[in-house]
């Protein structure tokens, strides 16, 4: 499905935790055809300041939405579906999003990126989300649950956050049939410590019963910490990467991550087009952090 550019209308914008919001957007039906892990570039209609659109993963999409009444607010967009995003307020753009009332419109380009690869014939899947990395992981859980129902696939989700308030979508995940294990750095819920510690314990005990891949989305240090774990257990690892983006569709060359390649010359891939989901073995993990003090916004 090729991406498109459209206007969407804010239908709901609800605070779900101290720093987190859920926003529902009404837009053209084609937005609903997405793969978990794909994202939207969300921009302001005036588009001068803030200038750049913000990348937001698609949490869920409902289609078809009952068509809007002709004279009504949404009629001009020919709206037919509803897309949900979850976001953390961590800067100017997300603060402006948080202040948006229903009825206001935003500019959207999407769905963008490759999305997670779903293997149908596995009996297990292990998913890890850190902080605001949860939206694509929750979307993936729901798709895995329906697609792989016939195989009785066991879905284990690991959620990590600074404290209890940073753990989102827990009930959604359970409702989809996943086993959810949580870790918080302050110990306010679940294991006190890092989610990767929980993951290691789990894999050490169960590895022999697992045939599916690891899927992860979260802050860079978490994704990097999972890479050697996946390697040690010889499990395929799909990681959702982040980078500052200007366009989101492969035109600016701004959103690169370094790839393991030949030693003499650095190779880069585009997060927006070649990703955001990468094979964990492909990424040059130690180098990525060199990206100079960014992305604190989405730390766990």
């Amino acid at each position, binding site marked *: 499905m090729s991406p*498109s*550019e459209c206007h969407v209308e804010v239908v709901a914008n609800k605070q779900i935790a101290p720093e987190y919001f859920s926003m529902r957007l009404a837009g053209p039906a084609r937005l609903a055809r997405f793969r978990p892990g794909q994202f939207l570039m969300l921009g302001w209609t005036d588009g001068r300041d803030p200038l750049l*659109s913000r990348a937001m993963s698609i949490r869920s999409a409902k289609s078809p939405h009952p068509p809007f009444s002709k004279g009504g607010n949404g009629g001009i967009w020919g709206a037919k579906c509803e897309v949900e995003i979850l976001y953390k307020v961590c800067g100017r753009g997300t603060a402006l999003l948080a202040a948006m009332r229903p009825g206001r419109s935003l500019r959207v380009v999407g769905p963008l990126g490759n999305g997670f690869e779903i293997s149908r014939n596995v009996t297990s899947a292990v998913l890890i989300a850190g902080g605001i990395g949860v939206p694509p992981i929750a979307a993936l859980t729901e798709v895995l649950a329906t697609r792989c129902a016939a195989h009785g696939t066991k879905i284990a989700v690991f959620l990590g956050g600074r404290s209890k308030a940073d753990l989102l979508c827990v009930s959604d995940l359970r409702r989809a049939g996943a086993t959810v294990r949580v870790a918080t750095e302050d110990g306010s819920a679940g294991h006190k410590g890092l989610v990767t510690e929980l993951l290691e314990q789990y894999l050490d005990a169960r590895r022999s019963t697992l045939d599916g891949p690891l899927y992860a989305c979260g802050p860079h240090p978490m994704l990097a910490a999972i890479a050697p774990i996946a390697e040690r257990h010889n499990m395929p690892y799909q990681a959702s990467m982040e980078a500052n983006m*200007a*366009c989101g*569709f492969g035109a600016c060359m701004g959103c690169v991550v370094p790839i393991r390649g030949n030693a003499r010359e650095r190779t880069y891939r585009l997060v927006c087009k070649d990703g955001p989901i990468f094979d964990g073995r492909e990424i040059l993990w130690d*180098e990525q952090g*060199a*990206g100079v003090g960014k992305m604190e916004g989405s730390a766990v």
Partner: protein
Amino acid sequence: MRPDLSITVAGIRMQNPVMTASGTFGYAQEFEPFLDLSRLGAIVVKTITRTPRVGNPPTRIVETPAGMLNAIGLQNVGLEAFIKEKLPYLRTLGPPIIVNIAGESIDDYVELASRLSDQEGISGIELNISCPNVADGLIFGCNAVLANKLIACVRQATSLPLIPKLSPNITDVVEIAQALADGGADALSLINTLIGMAVDVRSRRPKLSNVTGGLSGPAIRPVAVRMVWEVAQAVKLPLIGMGGIMTADDALEFLIAGATAVAVGTANFTSPSSAKRVIDGIKAYLIDHSVGRVTDLIGSLDLTGTTREITEWSS
């Protein structure tokens, strides 16, 4: 009334004056889902160099007030891959294709220009002598003698129209423009990005891995309009104006200040159909203001009552 939007720059005929700025339109294919590429005045593709370049490490992009800093580092597929993989597609689109080139030496530019001259489907060459993100990227753009020599040498190597692209990171833009005109340029593009910098105060580190980067977007438009206006008065060549064009009104500022054509840059990122809206908006303006031809607008700035008004006793 159907207004006439067509223009000619450096002998290249365009159905309207709206082009795409190099490095902001990829190799055009990325934009196919978003707009009808055949409607563009001309397509200018990302800078190509003799050999492929991997570009700078991340972070390459940061947002700034009404603008952005980039330090891509001229990542590109290189001359041969461009000819083999990108050009065949570009040729099918319709609008004139202008290839932007950069080199580290006069030899590089000469080699690129002569190799491109052998190819079908290229209407002109834009010379990037103003990239702030690579070592030596600016030497030709900041020195009138070198700029003149460069263009004169490349002139020998090709009969394609040559369009050097000026840097705003200089004291006197007119001096360089004049040197390029004297050297045999057919038109001038202006402006490239302004060198800028941003600091993360918490970590006390630069926000870009290259430390400095090129500022683009609405923030630079007033600088760009001023430079177009200054050059338009001093140099006879047609000008392609760019810098922060988001809307038709923004583009009209450049035309009125003296540009024959404009290029949409950063706006392609924030809305990939921007160029189409600029074209439609210019057309609507011509109709609303009963202007028959877009060329009637070029340099039509009215200075009456300003300090720059030319009166009998001031001249």
